[in-house]
């Protein structure tokens, strides 16, 4: 337990060691560690940012997809409507054309019928006159009764 000059010498050695550590050992270690900590923190932040950006992009693409789907549905709906319309139009046209043809045909038929009727009427009146002539030749003068006969023919 003898205190002596060694104490002073040791204290000086201690002071020098502290100075050395303060000056040369601590700062580079601290710098390296703090730089790395910052880098790691930055990296984590960047990763977080990337994740959120990805999320946003996913949402956007989903929205775009939904919009596209909606548009496609709309277009299909329009096309279907248009198709129905065209079919309806075509149907209408066809019906009108058919009606027109039928009307034409009916008119022609009517004309034919009328013509036939006229012919028949003429023939019937001629036949009636001939028959009446044959019957009346014996009893009635043809000339006297022809007026009445032509009146008859007009009534037929």
């Amino acid at each position, binding site marked *: *337990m*003898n*205190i*002596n*000059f*060694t*104490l*002073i*010498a*040791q*204290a000086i*050695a*201690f*002071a020098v*060691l*502290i100075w*050395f*550590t*303060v000056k*040369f*050992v*601590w*700062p*580079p*270690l*601290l*710098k*390296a*560690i703090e*730089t*790395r900590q910052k*880098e790691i923190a930055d990296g984590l932040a960047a990763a977080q940012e990337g994740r959120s950006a990805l999320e946003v992009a996913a949402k956007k693409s989903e929205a775009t997809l939904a919009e596209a789907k909606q548009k496609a549905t709309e277009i299909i709906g329009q096309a279907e409507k248009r198709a129905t319309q065209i079919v309806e139009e075509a149907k209408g046209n066809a019906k009108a054309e058919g009606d027109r043809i039928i009307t034409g045909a009916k008119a022609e038929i009517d004309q034919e019928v009328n013509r036939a009727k006229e012919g028949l009427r003429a023939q019937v009146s001629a036949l009636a006159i001939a028959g009446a002539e044959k019957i009346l030749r014996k009893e009635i003068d043809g000339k006297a009764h022809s007026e009445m006969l032509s009146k008859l023919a007009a009534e037929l």
Partner: protein
Amino acid sequence: MATEHAEHALTPSEYISHHLSFNAQSVGNGSFWTLHIDTLIMSVVLGLLVMGLVWWVARGATAGVPTKRQAFVELVFGFVDDQVKNIFHGNRHSFIAPTALTVFLWVFAMNAMDFLPVDIFAKLMHGIGFDKWRAVPTSDINTTFALALSVWILMIFFSIKVKGFGGWIHELFYSPFGTKIWVLPLNFLFNLIEYVSKPLSHSLRLFGNMYAGEVIFLLLGMWAATGLSGTIFGSILGAGWSIFHILIVALQAFIFMMLTVVYLAMAHESH
């Protein structure tokens, strides 16, 4: 070890006193002007070695992926830094944390010299011309007092630096019991006792632990010299004590560092 001492025919008290005496060199008149060459050389070499190693790693330290060497140093760095951060709430990087690192590593290295087999190491130093050689600088009271008194001076220095000289004197008289006129002498006495007891307990705790450890190694070594059974049991117990000593060495270095930080942190706080 047994045969070695049988040859010299040393008595137990001679053996122990030989191992417990320093390699003292007189540098002037009077018993104060003496240097313990062994303590000085061991501590300076260990200090240079351990701080040099850390410096070597710190110089090549990269902020990228660290090597295993750097990772280990950073582990120690982080350990010390965490301890300081919990105790001291100022700018620790400018002085206190590096000081804590120095104290921890240096004291640890000096304590760790206790693991060297006392006789073999002494024999080795004897071989190169040093008759007496104590390998553990921290079992020299001069070393522990040097450290504790340096910390004590730093303590007073920071007290005055933070509070001003007037503030420091004021605190000597006005804390901890209050500002009533009749408690002022009591305050001063209390602070005086604290200022005396701090370096004493700081240094004697480390010194006592390391000195006792060394003495037990010597006793075991002495037992080993008494014959075959003594050699066997002495070796087994010596191994056991060494293993237990790993804890003491690390713990005492840690305690010494923590007290250093606590004292310096307390000096920064005003009451």
